[in-house]
């Protein structure tokens, strides 16, 4: 047996008791490798400790409670299914079908009408902007627009300075 086989036996011992054959091979390994003795001792002690952990007490009516919960759940599902079936049946009749078709057609028609109204409104806005542009005076009037605009931006002190210069 080699080291990896020894490790495999340790891993096997984590899950179950070793078979007689495995135990014999392990004992043989431990005789030739006394340094591994302590490790195996603690491993097997921990295994026993974990094996001895008691089961958590379970209520004697646990299964009955689970079954009752399942019954309740099934009843809810059945109720939902029956509601769904009724709705399906209602839809399968001709009158509701026609009513739904008319409602959907009406909604679509209304939506289309609203869309057309919006498009026409946008077009009217565009036309009014164009009309304003057409109403503007001759572009030659705007020739000195930039110079006039700058005049308005000059500081008040500039005018007084210019006035003083002109008086001299």
């Amino acid at each position: 047996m080699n080291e990896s086989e020894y490790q495999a036996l340790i891993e096997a011992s984590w899950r179950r008791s070793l078979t007689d054959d495995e135990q014999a091979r392990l004992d043989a390994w431990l005789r030739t490798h006394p340094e591994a003795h302590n490790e195996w001792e603690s491993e097997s002690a921990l295994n026993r400790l974990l094996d001895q952990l008691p089961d958590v007490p379970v209520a004697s009516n646990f299964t009955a409670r689970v079954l009752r919960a399942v019954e309740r759940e099934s009843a809810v599902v059945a109720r939902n299914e029956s509601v769904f079936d009724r709705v399906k049946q209602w839809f399968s009749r001709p009158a509701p079908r026609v009513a739904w078709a008319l409602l959907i057609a009406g909604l679509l028609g209304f939506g289309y009408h609203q869309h057309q109204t919006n498009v026409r409104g946008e077009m009217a806005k565009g036309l009014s902007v164009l009309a304003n542009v057409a109403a503007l005076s001759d572009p030659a009037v705007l020739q000195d627009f930039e110079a006039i605009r700058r005049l308005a931006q000059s500081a008040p002190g500039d005018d007084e300075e210019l006035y003083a210069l002109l008086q001299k």
Partner: protein
Amino acid sequence: MLRVKQGDCGAFEELVEKYKQPVMNMVYRTLPDATEAEDLAQHVFLQVFKSAHRYEVSAKFTTGLFTIARNLCLNEIRRRSRHPAQSLDETFADDDEQPIRQAEDLRTFSPPDSLLHGELEAKVEEALAELPEKQRTAILMCRGDEFSYEDIAEVLDCSVSATKSLIHRGRETLKQKLKPYLKTGAWKEK
């Protein structure tokens, strides 16, 4: 499980009877409160019933069962961290009409034995409770021949080598914490 899928309630009852103990052991050691653990264990089986129609023969039932159990436990732990004062009973309010749990303690020890084993059990439970959730679940699922390392890896949603590493690290921590008991051989007394 195939019978349950076909709507056989008797088969479901058999499943609950067979697996209630391992599920309770796992849930209780993740949420150490007997009443809440039992409520949660019931929800585990309810989930199993609800998802029975999706069951495929290729899937191992116990792996699915423990995956559901672990996920519900993790959800509950997350819920508790968000709402620390809220009881599980409030969440599963439709269980209010259920009768009070009837637990039966079948263990009978003479007083000195019960003291010794009581202390030892408490120490082991304490050491287990202090382990990270994945290490604890891996170690608990590892004991017994029910689950292969592949099954445990599937439940924990990690690789087989990572699972073995989790078990190894968890066991090393347990050995450190329980060293005095392992050395004195107190465990041999039982």
